[in-house]
């Protein structure tokens, strides 16, 4: 191990960390925006549930690497793609902020973001659907009996409850997406792994670049896991099995009213 060359390359890795985090956070956020309607439609067998089902089936059924390759190298093969607004902002947007942030397939960064978002969206849709499916009927009946209309039930009871139940799996999905983002390095993006590969190639070594990348991914993963532990502790409190008896046994509480004894 040659630590000198690793230290020398730290600006490369710092930039890589920024790109990886940036890409992962945006992909997870956009993925969530896709997953929410998808999961609700799948759960309620909505009008487009077959379309969403096909989307989830395709993007969970194929590897992220293949999806990224198809979007980056595949779509660019078609002349009509390259001569359309998909390839770059229309001329009248030149010089405007919209022209500057236009999601162009010409850019490797946008291709990666699109592929990652679609992929994560499919996984998140499944996670959310699973969360929705295990919300007890009683919670929903209770909500209805309080006079909430269907959209209120969804917004105030069903979704919060499903999201809480999905939390542990969400932590997993974030870690998977973080690790999946290494795919960006094969389409010329200098993410953490890209920085590692460049280091390896520059010095003809095998371990220094990969081990540094691995250490960085591990550090980020641990940070995510730690944050999720805190979040879960807060939002899944109600699922903890009570160890202490409620204070003042015999006092009028929920348990008393329903006649169900806490165990």
């Amino acid at each position, binding site marked *: 191990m040659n630590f000198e060359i690793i230290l020398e390359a730290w600006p490369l890795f710092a930039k890589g960390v920024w790109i990886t985090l940036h890409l992962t956070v945006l992909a997870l956020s956009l993925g969530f925006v896709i997953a929410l309607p998808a999961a609700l439609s799948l759960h309620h067998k909505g009008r487009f549930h077959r379309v969403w089902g096909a989307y989830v089936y395709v993007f969970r059924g194929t590897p992220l690497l293949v999806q990224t390759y198809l979007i980056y190298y595949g779509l660019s093969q078609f002349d009509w793609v390259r001569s359309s607004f998909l390839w770059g902002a229309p001329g009248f947007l030149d010089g405007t902020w919209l022209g500057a942030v236009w999601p162009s397939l010409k850019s490797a960064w946008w291709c990666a973001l699109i592929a990652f978002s679609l992929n994560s969206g499919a996984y998140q849709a499944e996670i959310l659907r699973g969360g929705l499916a295990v919300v007890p009927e009683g919670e929903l009946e209770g909500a209805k009996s309080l006079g909430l209309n269907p959209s209120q039930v969804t917004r105030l009871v069903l979704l919060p409850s499903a999201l809480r139940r999905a939390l542990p799996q969400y932590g997993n999905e974030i870690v998977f997406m973080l690790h999946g983002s290494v795919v960006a390095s094969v389409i010329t993006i200098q993410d953490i792994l890209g920085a590692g590969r460049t280091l390896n190639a*520059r010095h003809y070594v095998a371990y220094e670049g990969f081990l540094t990348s691995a250490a960085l991914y591990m550090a980020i993963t641990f940070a995510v896991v730690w944050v999720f532990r805190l979040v879960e502790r807060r939002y899944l409190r109600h699922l903890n099995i009570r160890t202490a008896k409620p204070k003042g046994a015999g006092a009028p509480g929920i348990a008393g009213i329903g006649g169900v004894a806490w165990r």
Partner: protein
Amino acid sequence: MKRLVLAAALAGFATTAAAADLKICVEGAYPPFSETTASGDIVGFDIDIANALCASMGKSCEMVKTEWDGIIPALIEGKCDAIVASMSITEDRMKVIDFTNKYYQTPAKFISKADAGLVDTPEGLKGKVVGVQRGTIHQDFMEGEFPDVELKLYGTQDEAYLDLQAGRIDAVIADSVAMDDGFLKTENGKGYAFFGKDYSIPKYHGEGAGIGVRKSDGDLKAALNAAIDAIRASGEYKTINDKYFDFDLYGA
């Protein structure tokens, strides 16, 4: 039945493990020197040369397909014993591995769209994006001579061609012969052409392509050098040369 499958699987291992005398690292994504056919075979000038050298040394050889940016580590770690992959003999690489004498030498050159009108000066390429294969002499050359030009790094040369066609990059720099036969003369290369000078700067481009061996393998290096001379003398080199190129690849 299960046991039979297991036995067959183990037999499969055994046959691949019944190793050749020498394992040769080749790339398989650098036509016409080294390319992978639809059926998965690796063919090309490098492969033919490697086989001819092995035959001349009286050794059996096995080609090991290896990613370019991991090919030197693969040699050092013993995954193969020699690299025959159009690798230029450079000072930087000589720090970690040893090379035989050259087995061919060709200059580097830029390509772009034929009507792009690019000039190979720092001003001429200002604001343009140039693609190179990661970890090649061409990357070093660009970083050294054109530090302000945006570089895109690719795992293989073929991916750089794809992005040149897609218009994501304006030019590619690589070995002139590899690009001529591997791209310009193919269907995909229509409408693209060389521009600028022939580059052959020893500091970047070395002294031609040699066969990489471990520093500790002096005997193998000597044997390979003798074999290169032998196939040059016997005319076998020329036969292989003429199979792929209509000019002398060996250079001066």
